[in-house]
């Protein structure tokens, strides 16, 4: 009897220690599977897999969590998926071969990179109309928007630049050279910096948003791995702005970087060819997409240890987590 009570107490203590397991929903685009996996972040299980358009890559969600936007690259459109029914309820005129996009902080405007046309397309979500097409460098891909929504950053892969776009005038105001094949742009939460990954260059450039100068280039080195395999793609920065996570592609690791010292604190082993990342809204978990092992990895951000990998569809590309 007494033993039983101890066990119960221990169980309660354990429960308290781990905190309330909040259930969020993660949406994963499976590039080769033409599908989207819906994952419960508390049980870490795939709840459902739904068919979507061809070659789904970039994925994001409306601020209210009601709609998922998905780049169906080979269908030349952005699909709108109702998160309550998981049905495709409409599409946006993205222009050809949309790969990656970013939603304005107010959720009203979608900025899409069109790789084939050297353009950034600006779409009004309510009217589903193209508001502008902004010429940028060759093979635009990475898209980041400042927290105030005033500045958009697009990276062009063959041009190796981060293009700063004034969202009110819809013009490129600065173009900053970074290392070869920039893939992703992420603003710090205070909007003071943009972190740009360079896949072939193997670095992350930190750009000051005021001066539009590169203030730091972060290099990566994993013992036992050849430098060519280190190909930074996705970057996610914690809401408190203290840590940045960088997905290193075929190096199969995620780097944890101290945003103050720019020092790499740790390399976390995940699945094969890790490309994109997303936090749960409580920031306790980071989810990675591992394209070549067909899985996603959950990372505990308190310990920066991988918790579990979960098989999803074929070649997971992007991931987004519901805000609620």
């Amino acid at each position, binding site marked *: 009897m007494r033993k039983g009570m101890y066990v119960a107490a221990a169980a309660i203590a354990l429960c308290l220690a781990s905190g309330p397991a909040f259930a969020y929903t993660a949406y994963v685009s499976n590039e080769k599977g033409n599908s989207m996996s819906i994952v419960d972040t508390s049980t870490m299980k795939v709840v459902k897999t739904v068919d979507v358009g061809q070659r789904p890559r970039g994925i994001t969600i409306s601020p209210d969590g009601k709609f998922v936007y998905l780049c169906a690259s080979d269908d030349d459109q952005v699909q709108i998926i109702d998160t309550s029914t998981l049905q495709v309820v409409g599409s946006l005129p993205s222009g050809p071969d949309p790969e990656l996009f970013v939603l304005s902080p107010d959720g009203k405007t979608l900025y899409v990179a069109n790789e084939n046309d050297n353009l950034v397309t600006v779409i009004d979500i309510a009217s589903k109309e193209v508001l502008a097409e902004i010429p940028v460098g060759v093979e635009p891909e990475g898209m980041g928007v400042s927290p105030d929504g005033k500045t958009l950053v697009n990276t062009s892969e063959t041009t*190796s630049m981060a293009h700063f776009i004034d969202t009110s005038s819809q013009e490129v105001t600065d173009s900053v050279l970074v290392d070869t094949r920039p893939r992703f742009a992420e603003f710090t939460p205070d909007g003071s910096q943009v972190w740009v990954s360079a896949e072939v260059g*193997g670095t992350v450039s930190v750009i000051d948003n005021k001066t539009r100068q590169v203030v730091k280039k972060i290099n990566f080195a994993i013992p036992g791995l050849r430098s*060519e395999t280190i190909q930074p793609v996705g970057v996610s920065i914690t809401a408190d702005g203290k840590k940045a996570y960088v997905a290193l592609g075929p190096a199969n690791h995620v780097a944890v970087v101290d945003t103050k010292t720019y020092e790499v604190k740790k390399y976390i082993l995940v699945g094969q060819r890790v490309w994109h990342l997303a936090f749960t809204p409580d920031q306790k978990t980071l989810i990675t997409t591992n394209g070549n092992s067909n899985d996603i990895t959950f990372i505990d951000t308190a310990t920066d240890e991988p918790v579990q990998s979960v098989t999803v569809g074929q070649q997971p590309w992007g991931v987004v987590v519901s805000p609620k």
Partner: protein
Amino acid sequence: MKRAILAIAALIAFLCLTASGFAADQKTKPAEVRIGYLRAYAPRLTLSLLDLPPRDEGVAGAKAGIKDDNTTGKFMGQNFDLDVTEVKPDADVTKAFNDLVAKGDHFIIVDLSTPQILSIADMARDKGVLLFNVGDRDDSLREEDCRINVFHIAPTRSMLADALAQYLIVKKWPRWVLIYGSHKPDQLYADALRRAATRFGGQIVAEKEFKDTGTARRTDTGLAQVDQQITAFTQGFPDYDVMLVADESEVFGTYLPYRTWSPRLVAGTAGLVPSSWHPASEQWAGIQMQNRFMREYGRHMLSKDMNAWTAARVVGEAASRTRSDDPKTMSDYIRSDKFSVAAFKGQKLTFRKWNLQLRQPIFLGDGRAVVSTSPQAPFLHQSSTLDTLGVDQPETKCTLK
């Protein structure tokens, strides 16, 4: 005295004017970088219609590269132009070369024979002109005949042969029969395959030369005799895994697959072919390159197109990274440790310092699809696995001059 003062004043005024003129110029007119393209061209016959080289083979790649350079240049205040000149194979190229230099071309893409390249290399060096070789595979041009101002984008025969050999060894198909043509390029390719066999543990169990007796490449009766001829020709070899073929001259190689006496694979210049690009490569964002090339030029992108695209990008990269159109500044940058270029091959490409050959992965494919890319994972190297392909630094005969 007065006159002296006046003269000084005039001089100052003149200097001011030119200085301000220059400043204004900088703002309004983009910096101009002219790239030359010098090629030897004559129509040639191939055994398969699909292998007929398009009229603008290579040139279209350079144009695509210039286009990409200009998209970048728009943000840098730099503009790139291409001057294309054509001569006959084996013609004297000095005049054509001098004409390009007179136009202001300090970077010239060359698709020429080894003697033609060597005939202008030293002149080019003395004029501060860099040549980018996109068509010549001769190892000698990177070894005993290497030059300090000739960069090689095209891979050598030894790089291609090594790429193929690595794959065959990884597949555990190590016993080879080597069939080679009677022309010099065929024999050089055969040499490269023999070298690759020793290097990676392949065994050439038999060799045979296929003599070019000057037969027509096509006749109205078609392939009636070819099957008989090839079956008989390939009879009587010891047991082997793969038939290697060295026929750059397009005399018989294409006829080997499916017609050999033994049911064996064919690789080399026919069957599984190593190359610097493959028109079906989609990996490493290659699909984007393929799409825009097809859209612009209405055909598939071939190896020579990719070589020329890369050459144009090397120059573009030098201009944007140095923010300069000064040939000396750009050349110094291309030679420096900082230089690298991306060309849809999964990693950055750099030049071998000892002979100015571009390090690069090699595609292995048949007429339809990419089968693999080399270097193959089991083959290691102390500095770059790409240096497992071709002549490595300790073996080089090159002294850059």
